């Protein structure tokens, strides 16, 4: 496996402009910013390009800071497991504004079950789902904005998993993002169409893990 580490903190050390900070960054916001960083890293060819189309999960951990300059969030982005047991992963170390300080990529081979998104790619679908968790309107669909229960997922966000929705014939019909949060026993399910719009029939659902079908 290739272990590839690059530090962006060098930029701060060189005295380049410190871009303003928003503080009060929620875990969900940090996750969304992590997705943007992954996209930037793909565009700039600093990580494997397959993260754009094959990303499957993102999780967020809060870190113990010893000093204010230490990372505050750790985001882990993974693809599905490969047949050889490897798994492509990127860890982002972020400050308390969700700004990435450094990243570490663990290489691997393609997932055993390759996703084949036909409209929006995996990162863009996850981005839409994160906007929903942050209770934004998705285009003009108010489902996420009008569900107060989502604020628990925004504050306590721990992870999101993207999976395909297939019909009985196995045809890809849409995407589902399952969101977990600290202190919440139920899983939030966000259903999207392949173009990144929310599924108008059942855009969101909060489901007891125990009552899984």
């Amino acid at each position: 496996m290739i272990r590839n580490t690059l530090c962006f903190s060098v930029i701060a050390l060189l005295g380049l402009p410190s871009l303003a900070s928003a503080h009060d960054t929620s875990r969900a916001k940090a996750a969304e910013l992590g997705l943007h960083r992954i996209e930037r890293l793909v565009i700039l060819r600093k990580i494997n390009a397959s993260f754009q189309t094959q990303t499957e999960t993102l999780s967020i951990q809060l870190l113990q800071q010893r000093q204010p300059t230490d990372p505050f969030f750790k985001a882990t982005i993974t693809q599905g497991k490969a047949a050889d047991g490897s798994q492509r992963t990127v860890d982002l170390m972020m400050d308390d504004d969700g700004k990435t300080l450094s990243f570490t990529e663990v290489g691997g081979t393609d997932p055993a079950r390759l996703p084949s998104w036909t409209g929006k790619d995996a990162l863009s679908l996850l981005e839409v789902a994160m906007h929903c968790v942050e209770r934004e309107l998705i285009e003009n669909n108010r489902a996420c904005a009008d569900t107060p229960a989502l604020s628990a997922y925004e504050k306590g966000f721990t992870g999101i998993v993207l999976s395909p929705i297939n019909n009985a014939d196995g045809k890809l019909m849409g995407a589902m993002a399952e969101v977990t949060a600290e202190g919440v026993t139920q899983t939030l399910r966000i259903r999207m169409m392949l173009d990144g719009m929310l599924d108008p029939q059942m855009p969101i659902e909060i489901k007891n893990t125990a009552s899984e079908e």
Partner: protein
Amino acid sequence: MKRIWTAALMMALMLQGTPARAEVVWDPLPPEAYALAKLYPDAQRLLFAFDYGHALVYERLLLNRGSIRDPEKFEKALLTDIVKILKNPPNVKIDEADIAPTYVFTFPLILSLFDWSHMLHQFVLDVLASSEDRGVAMNVRVNEIYRQYKANQPVVITDVCKTMLFMDGHYFSKAFRRSYPSFNLLIWSYHWFQIRLYEDLMKPTKLERDKAVADTIKSFWDLISNLPDSADFDMMPETAIEAPTFAKAFPALPSAFDNNHMLHDVVSDILTSDRVMGPAIRSEGIRFGRMAQDPNAFRAVNCPARK
């Protein structure tokens, strides 16, 4: 009779100091117009260069559409040309029709929206740079300028906060930043510079303003010193975050400015994406221009500018 006179008087008051037609003509010009150029000529010339740079990139993308075999080479050539302009910026605002006639023809509505909005940007900077009063009177002037801007509804970009999905949520989105990452970061650095100027010019003393503007100019050059790595933006810089003092003083303006900046990215993506068929470019330009004006399209619930 009394009612008629009252209505006439109210109408006259409403029209006073506001542009009377749906044209991109600010008449009369505010007395502060282009004061920034006198007080901070280097900053002003960079702003003129940005307008030039935007128009040039749009024109080149349009003229070369479908025939750009090597995007990296295209981007490198474009960056070389633009950096020359930035290093030797114009002293006056360039008329887009002179340097980008195809763009002007293709995006009639968006061009008017940008022109009108750029005047707002300019005159707000002029007031902040030159106002002797740093309190109520300055704020009143900025709000007067904004009221005049808003009075010309057919070419006004809404000040209702939109989500980033307005920029990134379409079938053609992100095409520009994926094909031309360095150039995209240069444009976000332009936006950052412009936003930071508002914050700099909110400083109470001339000495502080001078230093802040000088620092921002230096930071801009640092940002573009080694693109793409030197500009550490994951997303378009937002006014409320980069200019918090300004945003607090003028809560309607950050969203108006951010919506303008997002619309610039939308145009870049329309011009770059092969998912937008050639003949559709003009109509998509009009559709997305209208979306920038529509307060309900991609309306944000959680708006950083309103916090």
